[in-house]
């Protein structure tokens, strides 16, 4: 299913999230199972499936990484569920350093400071990679698409780090 088509939005990485939200609600107003509660069993079942599709499509377009993956999949390049984990040594080095920084937080005298520092680094890297991702996807050539796939793989590391950092932040607050 082409999620961009579903929402009548251009198939590109840059997306108007407000517009996406508005169109999402418009679709749910028509296809949500509550609108078909008086229908036959088959109609009800179809409404559930349709509403689930719409939810899934919305969920996938809302998040930049999933949106990029969907865009690549539409262009014939599937990277979800892949087991591949090869990365450049320089990137892995950088990841290790960030992990070490995170590991220090729980024992640090001033954890807030370390959290801020890690957060800043992660955000900076993420931003830069997202910019690269955008231009690679905009170029729309097979070669650039493979570059984009690599950037997505890298970004996944940073999103994971960010999640762990948020968890650490909660723990220090509690």
């Amino acid at each position, binding site marked *: 299913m*082409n999620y*961009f*088509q*579903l*929402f*009548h*939005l*251009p*198939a590109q990485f840059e997306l108007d999230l407000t517009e996406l939200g508005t*169109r999402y*609600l*418009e*679709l*749910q*107003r*028509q*296809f*949500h*199972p*509550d609108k078909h*509660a*008086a*229908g*036959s*069993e*088959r*109609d009800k079942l*179809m409404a*559930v*499936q*349709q*509403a*689930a*599709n719409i*939810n*899934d499509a*919305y*969920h996938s377009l809302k998040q930049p990484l999933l949106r990029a993956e969907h865009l690549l999949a539409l262009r014939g390049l599937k990277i979800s*569920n892949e087991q591949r984990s090869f990365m450049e040594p320089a990137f892995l080095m950088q990841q290790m350093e960030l992990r070490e920084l995170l590991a220090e937080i729980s024992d640090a005298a001033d954890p807030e400071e370390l959290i801020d520092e890690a957060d800043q680094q992660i955000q900076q890297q993420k931003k830069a990679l997202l910019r690269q991702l955008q231009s690679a996807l905009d170029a729309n050539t097979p070669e650039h698409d493979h570059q984009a796939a690599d950037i997505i793989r890298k970004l996944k590391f940073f999103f994971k780090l960010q999640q762990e950092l948020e968890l650490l932040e*909660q723990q220090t607050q509690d």
Partner: protein
Amino acid sequence: MALLQIAEPGQSAAPHQHKLAAGIDLGTTNSLVATVRSGEAKTLFNQAGQDMVPSVVRYTADKVIVGHAAAADAVLDPHNTIVSVKRLMGRGFAEINADAEHIPYQLVDQSGLVAINTIQGIKNPVEVSAEILATLADTASQTLGGELTGVVITVPAYFDDSQRQATKDAAKLAGLNVLRLLNEPTAAALAYGLDSGQEGVVAVYDLGGGTFDISILRLKRGVFEVLATGGDSALGGDDFDHALVNWLQQQTGQSALSHSELRQYLVTARQIKENLSATEQLDFVLPLASGEFKGQISRSDFDALIQPLVRKTIRACKQVLRDAGLDTEEIQQVVMVGGSTRVPLVRSAVAEFFATEPLTSIDPDKVVAIGAAIQANVLVGNKSDHDTLLLDVIPLSLGLETMGGLVEKIIPRNTVIPVARAQEFTTFKDGQTAMAIHVLQGERELVDACRSLARFNLTNIPAMAAGGAHIRVTFQVDADGLLSVTAQEKSTGVSASIQVKPSYGLSDDQVATMIQSSMLYAKQDMQLRLLKEQQVEAERVLEAVTAALNADAALLTEEEKLNVEQALAELARVKQGDNTAAIKAAIEHTNHITDEFAARRMDMSIRSALQGHKVDEV
């Protein structure tokens, strides 16, 4: 001709006929039924003039008593009087038995499920709840002067799949058509939101007799979007009572209590709790076999007893805000739901945490039933021009058991429902034709720390080399928050068969047997009911397909159209008779003939749904 025949007046219900629908709040302590009449949602009163019916069921040798009369007998006949049965819904015997000291009746193990030994034999929580539901539905039918077309039943947002399924089974057993299971906080928000037309982010703090929910919703132009939900499906006012019972035992020095004494302690505890909402200091009398025990308690004594419980709810509030990605300042209103929010400490703790005075303008005991009634009226089709939309979420993550007793999450908590997620599995042995899947619900990483929902056995997998078969298993959660699972082998397209073994639930066969053997239905009634169900469904199919033909016949070839018309004519003819199986077969035949038509229409409507927008380049 065929079309004329089925469109004939008198054969189908008039389109604008008002259908009878009700909202039911099946509570731990009290239950209520409400309906919309002349545009206003109101609770309904039984012949004794009460709208709040205690959720108490007493079994005598030849009768079943529900409500006030049963509650009055709780001390007299504790073994046969079931109180707070909601706490037992969808639970295992081993899970419940852990705190059995506070349950004054005899629990038994019914193949893993918890059940109660009564004078009428073993009754499971589904059967007990069905008695309460049937009583409420009776009140509604009598007041409204007709049979109910459908009901909306509310459940705690934090109820897991087994607890929801048990509630739905109870409704089935009571002979009710469930339009929707609606989350209690969402129902409350609906009652408030429509009442005041307010917009913005609201928190609904719902502390009932046995369950606690906290939900964060965004209200915007008729859309009620649940951003996150959390809570505890085993924490409520009952626990305040139990804390007081422990305190009373310290006062009287009575350490071991008989079932009857425990009931009496609980009655007194509840009176103390309720009275302390209005007064700072209380003299109380506890009737004992050895005479009366007279004592004194202050509100601050009580507050100290329940402080840990209230703190637990505030911790859940914190978590749910985190899940929603919001700060307390972003919450514009806090709505209080449930009788236990009358306790002053609860109110002050909530007001302090959210830094705002909570809303209580709709009776916290009735607001859920009122919300359910509003939604029932919409779902049954009485309000065709409505533009409210409820977008709810799944309260607990769904996952699968993987190697080493770990859980892999398939659908994370707070995902908007309905939702479908697929997962691929492969065989690890040559010629493997079966596979077992264990589905769990919860947030923890270890299987043992999550709740087991069901085990699925996939069979009929085509025999291939190891890793050759790719089975795509789809987990679908519907708008009631209920899970269903389908599986397909990808390369061959063969549907693998699924056998479901619910961990804490009844199988479809068990429910059917219960319905048949139930005292609620004589055998004759049962057959009539099955016939009627099929006739109603046949009517729905006829209406839906006829409307589809009228609108979109252009999507069919002449031959296809003829086939559809023939199927409809046959269905209309069979429907008039009393052959349940034949009607069922005709429905299935019609569905089969129109499957492709329905798919084409769905495609078309999806494509045209956003037609108002400029179609951007793709």
